[in-house]
């Protein structure tokens, strides 16, 4: 292992290609933490954004005018403002309005930290798109199929759970897939509020070591790999949900 690390140090001395995060223990640790942070942040945001999508689509079908308006306002706000500015706004504006709690180092800090706010604002951001996607999926389920369910005596909730949602899910998977890929790409923005994810760490490392090109190339491949894994597993899921004799291909 050490020899492997040393080889990269040698690489730097010989060629100037400086991959500190391989041979420098401190940088390596940071980079691994950053990588894990990106994955963790992505997973948590994926989860919540899908939940928001499902609930939001359900609320949008609500008979109450104000519920629908609220959901629409939410969607418009998040779709039409830059996510980077949203993050700032949430973290510094809304975040500081929350009650403070005592911290274990003796001070008082706002209730939610930067990771929590990154999750909240990125989930709401991606969720705004997911609501749209889910609603389109639900609309794709023909009324006649829903009628068939109610003609069999299923209640509204039973129909939603057993018929509408499973069918809608199959229609929207490609779109959802795409949206989630974008979510993973967008987690890079969390660096702005100091969530130590991959870009944040890379930024620190290239500032310390003046090796921007190397770090950028590494980042690019790391993200392509992450997105690749996501796309692959979503495709597998899509295939496993495929109904025989149904669908375009």
């Amino acid at each position: 292992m050490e020899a492997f690390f040393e080889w990269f140090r040698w690489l730097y001395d010989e060629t100037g290609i400086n991959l500190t995060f391989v041979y420098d223990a401190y940088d390596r640790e940071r980079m691994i933490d950053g990588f894990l942070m990106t994955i963790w942040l992505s997973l948590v945001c994926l989860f919540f954004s899908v939940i928001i999508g499902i609930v939001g689509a359900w609320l949008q079908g609500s008979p109450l005018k104000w519920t629908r308006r609220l959901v629409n306002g939410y969607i418009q706000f998040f779709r039409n403002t830059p996510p980077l500015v949203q993050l700032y706004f949430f973290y510094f504006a809304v975040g500081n309005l929350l009650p403070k709690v005592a911290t274990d180092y003796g001070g008082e800090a706002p209730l939610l930290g930067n990771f929590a706010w990154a999750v909240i604002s990125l989930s709401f951001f991606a969720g705004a798109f997911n609501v749209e996607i889910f609603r389109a999926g639900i609309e794709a389920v023909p009324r006649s199929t829903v009628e068939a369910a109610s003609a069999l005596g299923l209640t509204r909730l039973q129909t939603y759970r057993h018929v509408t949602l499973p069918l809608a899910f199959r229609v929207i998977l490609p779109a959802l897939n795409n949206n989630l890929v974008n979510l993973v790409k967008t987690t890079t923005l969390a660096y702005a509020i100091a969530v130590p994810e991959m870009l944040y760490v890379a930024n620190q490392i290239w500032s310390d070591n003046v090796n921007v090109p190397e770090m950028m190339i590494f980042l690019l491949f790391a993200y392509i790999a992450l997105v690749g894994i996501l796309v692959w597993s979503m495709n597998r899921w899509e295939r496993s949900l495929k109904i025989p004799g149904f669908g375009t291909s």
Partner: protein
Amino acid sequence: APVARADIIDVVKKRGVLKVGVKADYKPYGFRDPSGKIVGIEPELAKEVADKLGVKVEFIPVVSSNRMQFLQQGKIDLMIATMTDRPDRRKVVWIVTPNYYSSGTNILAPKKFGFKKWEDLRGKPVCGIQGAFYNKKTGKEFGAKIVAFKGTAEVYNALKAGRCVAFVYDDSALVAQLQSPEWKDYEMPLPTIDDAPWGIAVRHGEKRFHHFMADMIRGWHASGRILELEKKWGVANTPFAKAMHAEWRYFETGK
């Protein structure tokens, strides 16, 4: 291999414009006024260089992560951008000696915490600026958890909100900040470390320009120009500037 190119002083004179990379978010060393112009101590120094060369000056705003690239690429001819003079940076660009300025690292922290030594920061969240070199040291040697933001405005906000216990930064900037009544409950309690000089940089291989700049800097120190500028922009005279003035005045004038 570096391509042989025309001497930069000739190029600048022919072009009639000197392009200087300066900070635009580092009050009072380089920042914007409401008209969008970049002003501050460093832009004034840059202006003097241009005057000496008999050309106009153009300020290009840079940040820590791109300033050396810009110089290498030739996008700027000269960099006066609060850059600490460090050996690994000298591999990339030519840093002019003598150094023109210096600053150490210290923290801004609420008085109530009563920090006494750097080790007190261990395990606690400490705010910083993204890309600053002392982040690594503060994290690695003193065990603080660095929470770095892009600009000082964000950091001051986070510090006040209690998201971190201290702000690790250049002591000169912190001293300026402490003069505001808004920060009366805060202090700069630790011994300044890493008192490291700032370097003006030129591209690798620009021998003539390097000499030219070295003369400029010596002149500034000898004449007390730096001390003057500090006063003008509301900074207490730093020991480094005083010492350099004393040294170079003696050297030049024998007094």
